[in-house]
């Protein structure tokens, strides 16, 4: 049995470089050391990001995942998105338009919209009934 930790939303600075990344890490490290940390990083203020900044984000995500938690990004500007795509890290993060959406995503229970009641091989799916065949 475990208790859910609260979702922490943190706003990233305008420049996410080596110096700012280090400062961010000092602030974020204790929050990542709890059980199942759930962190949302709000990137709405980020104007510039470099490889050291990206490395900080990856480190934080790694720390969160080690403790069975997750780190999500919100409000990523087109500029930051372009840098993340260039460095091939865009697909590693879940990205949301707003931090509220990102917080909600932690609470959401993944239920299929149309529960699958029929087996995949039944005629309901437009396939011949393989079981009877």
């Amino acid at each position: 049995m475990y208790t859910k930790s609260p979702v922490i939303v943190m706003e990233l600075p305008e420049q996410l470089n080596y110096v700012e990344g280090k400062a961010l890490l000092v602030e974020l490290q204790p929050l990542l050391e709890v059980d199942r940390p759930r962190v949302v990083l709000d990137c709405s203020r980020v104007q510039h990001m470099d490889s050291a900044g990206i490395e900080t984000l990856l480190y934080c995500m790694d720390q969160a995942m080690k403790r069975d938690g997750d780190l999500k990004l919100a409000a990523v500007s087109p500029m930051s998105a372009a840098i993340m795509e260039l460095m091939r890290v865009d697909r590693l993060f879940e990205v949301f338009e707003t931090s509220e959406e990102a917080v909600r995503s932690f609470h959401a229970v993944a239920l299929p919209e149309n529960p699958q009641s029929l087996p995949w091989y039944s005629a309901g799916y437009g396939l011949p009934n393989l079981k009877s065949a």
Partner: protein
Amino acid sequence: MGLGAIVIVGPRNPAFGPSALEASESSSRLAQHLSCVEILGCSMLERTIERLLGAEVELVSVVVASEVETAPQLFAKFKKVKLEVVNDVATATTRLFQDYVQSGLEHSFVISANLYAETDLLDLFYFHREGRQKITRTHDSQGPLDLWVVDCAKAQYADASDLFGPLSNGGSPNTSSPNNGSLNNAASYFVREYVSRLAHPRDLRRTACDALRGRCAMRPTGQEIKPGIWIDDGAEVHRRARIVAPAYIGRGSKVKEDTLITRCSSIERGCCVDAGTVIEDSSVLPNTDIGIWLDVCHAIASGNKLFSLERNVMVEISDSNVMRANGSARKEAKNLRALSLANEKQQPATAKVVDSKKETPAPEAWQLGANPIQG
């Protein structure tokens, strides 16, 4: 027959249309005027000049607006080309008409460098001459084009904004009727051939794709070593690099191991694409180094700047291990600065003229790494 041409690079004069302004703004993002950016081994401006010289034009005057940061520097390879940097493009154009009349040039093409049109220029000229109009403007299916033929004698005392201003809709694609350009007794000539308006870096990519796919007459420089794969002199492609046609690798560029160049991508002169990087639907402009294990997708990379066409943003990369302008770019910039300083010393006036001699292209042996393309 006495035919001249005036090519206008980056005016801020509204007489030459709002699209020219937009183009200047867009090009400032790439630190170079769009028409001067090398695509598939040659800039659009050079291609336009080659077309003009091919149409029996006796003298080409390239008028560069002073606000264009880097004046074109590649005229050493053309003779009959005169370069002028001016403050007022409209006044300079009128003055050139007067000069042409004095030199015995009866007619002149006037073309914006932001326009690449594959129309038959001689046919356009004959059409204009038969019409006996002061000016003939071209149109295509999307509206008026910034390409005119002018009777120099009739136009030499006219105000350029009267000549071109009311006619110009900036080559904007949405201009409705071709008759918009029929003021001042101007004739209208319809262009059916391939046309590219360079108003945005996106247009450079589109033109490169069209050329690589064979949708226009433009061809990359270098040799087509496999269908759709063009490799220029001195390019080195690692045997473990994969190039998917159509693609272009420019002069002296290096493509290292495990890279993937795909979807109409072009790597221009003097670039280096490091190991494991993917270049997809992108153009890497001259003298740019791209670091290892990167994804350059739907973008134009120039030095340490990446223009994402998908997101329409320019990103400046501060980390030189990721992207940077290489030594050749810095050397070129230094030479250019020295050249412009020398010109300014020689000619204190705002206009400076560079007459150039023909330089015979020295074909060098084509060098490649062993087995450049993996099947």
